[in-house]
């Protein structure tokens, strides 16, 4: 599984990244977490607002920091 966390690096984006990492550890799954800070790449993914989370190429969350339970539901 490939999880992309998109955001230019403001506090909320860092928070989102940490929550995703946390959730992946909790779920005990094998996932590659990538941080996307490049605006061009975000635009190609179709993201308008950050933080955004893309799992296996599918956008699951835009413009908000998700809760851990939400992330767990997406990666299951």
């Amino acid at each position, binding site marked *: 599984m490939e999880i992309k966390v998109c955001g230019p690096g403001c506090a909320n984006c860092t928070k989102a990244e940490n929550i995703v990492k946390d959730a992946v550890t909790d779920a005990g799954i094998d996932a590659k977490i990538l941080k996307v800070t490049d605006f*061009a790449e975000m635009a190609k993914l179709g993201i308008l607002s950050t933080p955004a989370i893309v799992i296996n190429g599918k956008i699951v969350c835009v413009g908000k920091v998700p*809760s851990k339970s939400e992330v767990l539901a997406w990666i299951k």
Partner: protein
Amino acid sequence: MKEIQNINCSCSDSSDLPEKATIKRSAGLSYKIVLTAAAFGLWFIIYRQLEPLAGFLTFTLFSIQRGSHLGEAVHFFLYDTPKVLMLLSLVIFGVGILRTFFTPERTRRILAGKRESVGNVLAAFLGIVTPFCSCSAVPLFIGFVTAGVPLGVTLSFLIAAPMVNEIALVLLYGLLGWKIAGLYLVTGLLVAIAAGWVIGRLGMEKHIEDWVREMRTNADDLQDNTPTWNERLQAGKTAVVDIVGRVWIYVIMGIAVGAGIHGYVPEGFMASIMGKGAWWSVPAAVVIGIPMYSNAAGIVPVIHALLGKGAALGTVLAFMMSVIALSLPEMVILRKVLKPTLIVVFVTVVGSGILLVGYLFNVII
């Protein structure tokens, strides 16, 4: 700059209430509505008691003499701080719910097919209600422009979004009354509409960075999931906790400074520097405001105090708009997608709009 962005960043953050949220969800919507109604009732009762309470604390409990400088300053502080914070909570709750009806994706869809003039007007209004965080300005800009939203329309959106925000409006209403809040709302929208329209007329598209213009984005593969009312109420609550939790300190500092000026600076002191008579004060206010960067929460109480001491309304509004709408960090962010010429045009056009607003109010009021 990280810190700065964070102050003004309105990204919703639901991460702080994960476990509680799941319990609440099962508690049901009717329970939540009753709770919300009860909170409104309580809010109203407390709000009505604020003025007598501040008077009691200042003049009876602390026994400071009525009419003295200290008394005025303390009373002002004790009354205005809870008043403004309560108003802020109420409005942010409402706006938090309103924003669940809009997403940047939906806004883009609305704007994509619009002609320019209509588009500018719509974009400015949507700028108020679309939830979006200042750190998202660049992806949003790219997403809009590549999906066929005209440059000028996109800029109308990006100007209105920070300038006409609920925090600024509540503070203006709470401290200066509905007329000035209304004036700010209307003129803020007009500046955003006009500036975006003018830049559209100037045909500046070639001054967008090349890599953005060459880009093709896929706009349609995003599905909207409509939130339930339960989630909308939750979003309102999250917004209050998040935003009030972040700006309360600026509100208190701003009001404290305001209280100091209120009590101690002589009446009419600002009249010579920021009064109507000084023609150069409006451009000076705009120019000084550009490098300054503050959120609305910090600046409005100071403005309140300046107005009370004889500064002209137009000058003060121009200063406020310039501080909020034009800022160096924002220019640095936009520079990633706009060439320097367009940045200069952007600042000039928006600055001129603000200048006009300033002179207009100084003349008519």
